[in-house]
């Protein structure tokens, strides 16, 4: 079974600070990590490989040269190969251009049975690249997968997380799934995994390598452009009531009456 996991390197948002002057993320000195949702995608891909001997997990990311470290970390978590889609023209891509670039790279790599993606990235939070990629590859996709119930040579049955429960969906291959955190607990990189990661040769693919249409990649291929990034101003004003709970309740009800709410 050929399994692909698509990942993204993101800033570690737990320690990101925002520049109050420009309103932008201060990226300097901020550690880059694998998008946390993609860790579930890698783990599920590796588990599937372990259950199906002879399978291979390829991890793909599009990003700057330093995104190579994310691929090495994925290898330390059990993936076999890393592919970095990296070229100047890919820069500044929105979700559509990213999905196109990844689809070109995956077509270039050849056969696959399953693609895993995290449900969304913690920096952009769009959840669009996974489904977009499936459309461009012309394959089935299931988003928000929380469990793989069964898998055999022809079909796969999964549980898709919904707001009020879950759907059970069965379909054939090839398939793209985006996964949610309920699906597994990602492993801690093993020593042998880390040694493999150290030795691994990361394959780099350029726009020319994957025959990408330059009008569809990077900034030029992106219909959405970021105009401005800012932190919404904190809500101000309001009135604070303090004291004993009973007195506060009375004051609030009084206020409601005054405002004609009750």
């Amino acid at each position: 079974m050929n399994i692909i996991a698509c990942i993204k390197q993101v800033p570690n948002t737990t320690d990101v600070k925002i520049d109050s002057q420009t309103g932008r993320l201060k990226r300097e000195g901020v550690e880059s990590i694998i998008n946390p949702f993609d860790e579930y995608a890698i783990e599920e891909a590796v588990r599937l490989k372990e259950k199906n001997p002879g399978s291979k997990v390829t991890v793909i990311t599009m990003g700057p040269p330093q995104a190579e470290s994310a691929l090495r970390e994925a290898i330390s978590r059990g993936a076999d190969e890393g592919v970095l889609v990296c070229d100047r023209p890919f820069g500044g891509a929105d979700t559509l251009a990213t999905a196109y670039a990844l689809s070109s790279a995956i077509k270039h790599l050849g056969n696959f049975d399953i693609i895993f993606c995290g449900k969304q990235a913690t920096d952009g939070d769009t959840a669009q690249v996974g489904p977009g990629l499936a459309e461009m590859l012309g394959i089935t996709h299931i988003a928000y997968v929380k469990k793989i119930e069964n898998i055999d040579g022809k079909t796969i049955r999964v549980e898709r997380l919904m707001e009020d429960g879950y759907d059970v969906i069965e379909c054939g291959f090839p398939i793209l799934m985006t996964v949610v955190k309920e699906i597994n607990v990602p492993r801690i990189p093993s020593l042998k995994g880390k040694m493999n990661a150290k030795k691994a040769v990361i394959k780099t693919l350029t726009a020319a390598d994957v025959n990408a249409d330059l009008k569809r990649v990077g900034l030029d291929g992106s219909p959405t452009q970021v105009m401005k990034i800012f932190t919404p101003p904190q809500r101000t004003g309001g009135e604070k009531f303090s004291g004993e709970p009973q007195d506060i309740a009375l004051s609030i009800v009084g206020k409601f009456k005054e405002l004609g709410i009750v």
Partner: protein
Amino acid sequence: MEYFLTEEEKMMVETARNIAIEKMKPVREHYDEKEEFPWEIVKEFAQADLCGVYIPEKYGGFGQGIMGLVLVVEELCKVDGAISLSLAATALGTLPILIAGSEEQKTKYLPDIASGKKLAAFGLTEAGAGSDATGMATMAVKDGDYYILNGTKCFITNGGEAETYTIFAKTNPARGARGISCFILEKGMAGFEFGKKEKKMGIRASSTRELIFNNCKVHKDQLLGKEGHGLMIAQATLDNSRPGVAAQALGIAAGALDEAVIYARKRVQFGQPIASFQGIQHMLADMATEVEAARALLYATARMIDANVGKPEKEQKRTSKESAMAKLLCSETAMKVTTNAVQILGGYGYCRDYPVEKMMRDAKITTLYEGTSQIQKNEIALNLIKESAAKNK
């Protein structure tokens, strides 16, 4: 302090730290309280390849010697000194095979231990044979291709949970120290049973049990090394394993020191953090200096042991003295530092809501097993005298 660890050594430390913080920390109180064996964590050790760090690569290990074992055990024990014992005591049970095993025995037993599929245990101590191993009563009587074992071992770490046991028994009582042999036993063999499980002050997540041999038939292929070489194997094992105990002690001490510093910075009395008081500062300074000195001696000892690997026997250096020194200093430091950590945390330190109370309980065993501190001093003095006698005839 910078110890110039290799890239592989840093990897082991990082992996052990991840497991300790992400997996062990949330459950350490549970296992201490319930006295259950921490199988869920053993699986994590196995998955991360930590079980075989000291086992050569050709048998499926990570080939990082005693230094590898020391680094991993120290890092795990900073968080919990009891759960990690499943791994450290397995090393003790495995060392006799590494030291004296035939190629067949190594190939048969080491890969499953390296992968973490099986745990091991070391069976020397008996009710009447602690510091004096020659006092053991367990007998192995030759009968054709077999030895018949009878007797009871006590205080066996990993007892009942391990699959592979290295057991010492008398094959020729008339020969005293040269009449003891070592055998590899497997859980489930007829006549091999488990007895009483001890209830202990500390290391409560670790199983400490009796092993009972009742006409247990062991094939001669299970003899480790030559008949009568058992005590030599045991001594060589302890020379290699005492740094493991020292690492456990050092990790507990380092963990307690961290807790004490964090607490001293936060705890406010008389209008200021207690870390601003010179009395507390001097205690912390002593603790940190003692921990670092213990670490330096331990790492140097581990490097000395590993430097013997691959050398012809004549060029190898015995490390009995250094191993004993490292264990003595680390374990006594652990007791001192954990006691002072409890002191700094005051009443809170005495309560189970804070981890230092457990650290102090866990630390005590390190001054007792694999030879008490007094036995380490005997070993050190004996070697001093021997060395002097060799130089000044």
